[in-house]
């Protein structure tokens, strides 16, 4: 066990001991289950000094048990001892992860499961702490609703959320993204071929990208109407420039020696472009695609604040905020976050497939 793991174990044990002491002083209020849980966790912390059952799963079970107890006792009037217990659970969970990740020569299948399990566990913990804190501390739901409330609202309104998702993500953001990135790519290749355009178009692109979205959105609504087309137009404007500059930079990233090499083969402009320059530009292009995937979503949502039919993520957020239905706002945020993470993840996956050769993606044993 490393010194760091020992520190976490000691702190966890101390937090549990504190819970135990507080539960005793507050007599009766805490209840026997809480007393027992605190005792178990305190002992779990102490066991490290006697090198008993050092396995990570002991820490995990201790942590999960404490969490289950806290969840079962969850209400607005929780005993004070719950809070040090919460901290103890957090520390033991951390310890379990820390020990598992430090373990060497794990079977390959297990380590790939773990690499997925750790972030999931971490996310689950955040949601758990959020739930316990918002309910236990009686935080007004207008400020921050507990995750359970958001989940219930989400489950009850799937048809509305699906319609909003289609309107904003599929119609507005995706079509704008494809149009914006695609046209910027074409223009970049054109610019690269014609120096006159490079002098003239790059500054214009720069200028357009500096326009604030709150200025563009109402204008686009006037040009293209209330429906998703105007939002797609905003997304096109927002995604165009990052793609343009990145592709232009990527096309210029080839080395003189590589260009000379293809010249000695008497290669044509298109052979040079396809066999050398576009592959070299791929890491740049994927950077732009990833940046743009989040930009497109933001653009489509914010643009709906400036006039829209009565459907869409942005529309729903702005109206439900006005009606103090914060749980619905959060449900929409969940949809947007899921869509954003999913598209980013897919692009990253694709990027690793296409630019596997780039030093940042090279596997040690292919």
């Amino acid at each position, binding site marked *: 066990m490393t010194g760091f793991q020992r520190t976490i174990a000691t702190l966890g044990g101390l937090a549990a001991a504190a819970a135990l002491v507080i539960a005793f002083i507050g007599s009766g209020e805490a209840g026997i289950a809480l007393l027992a849980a605190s005792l178990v966790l305190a002992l779990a912390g102490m066991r490290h000094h006697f090198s008993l059952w050092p396995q990570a799963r002991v820490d995990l079970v201790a942590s999960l048990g404490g969490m289950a107890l806290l969840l079962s006792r969850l209400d607005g009037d929780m005993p004070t001892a719950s809070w040090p217990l919460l901290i103890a659970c957090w520390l033991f969970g951390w310890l379990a992860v820390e020990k598992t990740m430090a373990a060497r020569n794990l079977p390959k299948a297990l380590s790939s499961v773990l690499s997925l399990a750790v972030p999931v566990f971490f996310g689950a913990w955040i949601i758990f702490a959020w739930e316990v804190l918002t309910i236990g501390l009686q935080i007004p739901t207008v400020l921050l609703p507990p995750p359970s409330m958001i989940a219930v609202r989400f489950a009850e309104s799937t048809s509305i959320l699906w319609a909003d998702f289609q309107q904003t993500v599929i119609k507005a953001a995706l079509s704008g993204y494809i149009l914006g990135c695609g046209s910027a790519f074409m223009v970049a290749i054109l610019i690269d071929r014609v120096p006159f355009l490079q002098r003239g178009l790059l500054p214009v692109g720069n200028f357009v990208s500096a326009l604030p979205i709150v200025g563009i959105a109402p204008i686009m609504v006037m040009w293209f109407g209330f429906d998703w087309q105007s939002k797609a137009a905003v997304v096109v404007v927002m995604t165009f420039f990052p793609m343009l500059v990145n592709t232009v930079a990527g096309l210029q990233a080839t080395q003189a020696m590589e260009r000379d090499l*293809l010249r*000695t083969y*008497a290669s044509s402009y298109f*052979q040079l472009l396809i066999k050398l320059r576009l592959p070299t530009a791929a890491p740049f292009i994927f950077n732009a695609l990833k940046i743009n995937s989040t930009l497109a979503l933001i653009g489509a949502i914010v643009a709906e604040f400036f006039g829209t039919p009565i459907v869409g993520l942005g529309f729903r957020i702005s109206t439900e905020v006005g009606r103090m239905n914060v749980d619905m706002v959060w449900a929409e945020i969940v949809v947007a976050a899921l869509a954003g993470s999913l598209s980013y993840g897919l692009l990253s996956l694709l990027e690793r497939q296409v630019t596997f050769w780039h*030093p940042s993606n090279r596997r040690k044993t292919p």
Partner: protein
Amino acid sequence: MSQDSNSIPAIRADRLCLTFDSNDGPVHALKDVDLTIEKGDFVSFIGPSGCGKTTLLRVIADLEHPTGGAISVNGKTPEEARLAGAYGYVFQAPALLAWRTIERNIGLPLEIMGISRAEQAERVKRTLELVGLDGFGRKFPWQLSGGMQQRASIARALAFDAELLLMDEPFGALDEIVRDHLNEQLLQLWKKTGKTICFVTHSIPEAVYLSTRIVVMSPRPGRVTDIIESDLPAERPLDIRESKRFLEIAQRVRNGLREGHSYD
């Protein structure tokens, strides 16, 4: 007809000049270079940096344009020769494309020149064997050592069977042991294929060991100061470098380099 084409020199330069314009005025990279290289020669260009040896090679390859004089490659202009795929060029660095396997890197010139897939595969296989890289074709360049990468880049230059091989300090970045090994292999390859090789180097032993002729150059302005015919036997084990004849030729090269410098 075949006799005719054999009597044409691989390279003929006649009062060749190349002047770059820089902020400090014109730089004479090459001045009045007269040179004839016959087919089948192994010619080394040696000289201190700035003597124009790389520039001369790039002029032959049509990567630079002379500002005066005349040059012909296989009796054609350098541009015609380049478009005809008359030479393979090996650069100072391997310059292999990281997203292509070694096989596909060697196949790159064949793809560009529009050679059929079956023939590509056959030629790639043959050149891989020629440079001793059989079994590494499926690897990516970044999975090989520096010496192997440079060998792959030589294989790529050989793949399309050009009669002329232009090599610009190909082993400059490699350590002494790998370099000796590759020098030996290059000599064998030259004997096996009968190609004309132009080899730029700044190492006297390397030049003497490899060449049939050594062109000594000097800087400011870049010009040829001496052309030394080597009469070392065709069979050259590595320890020929300790023989009396070898040291005499090396001495003559060294003198030529020194003379060039005293001009400053």
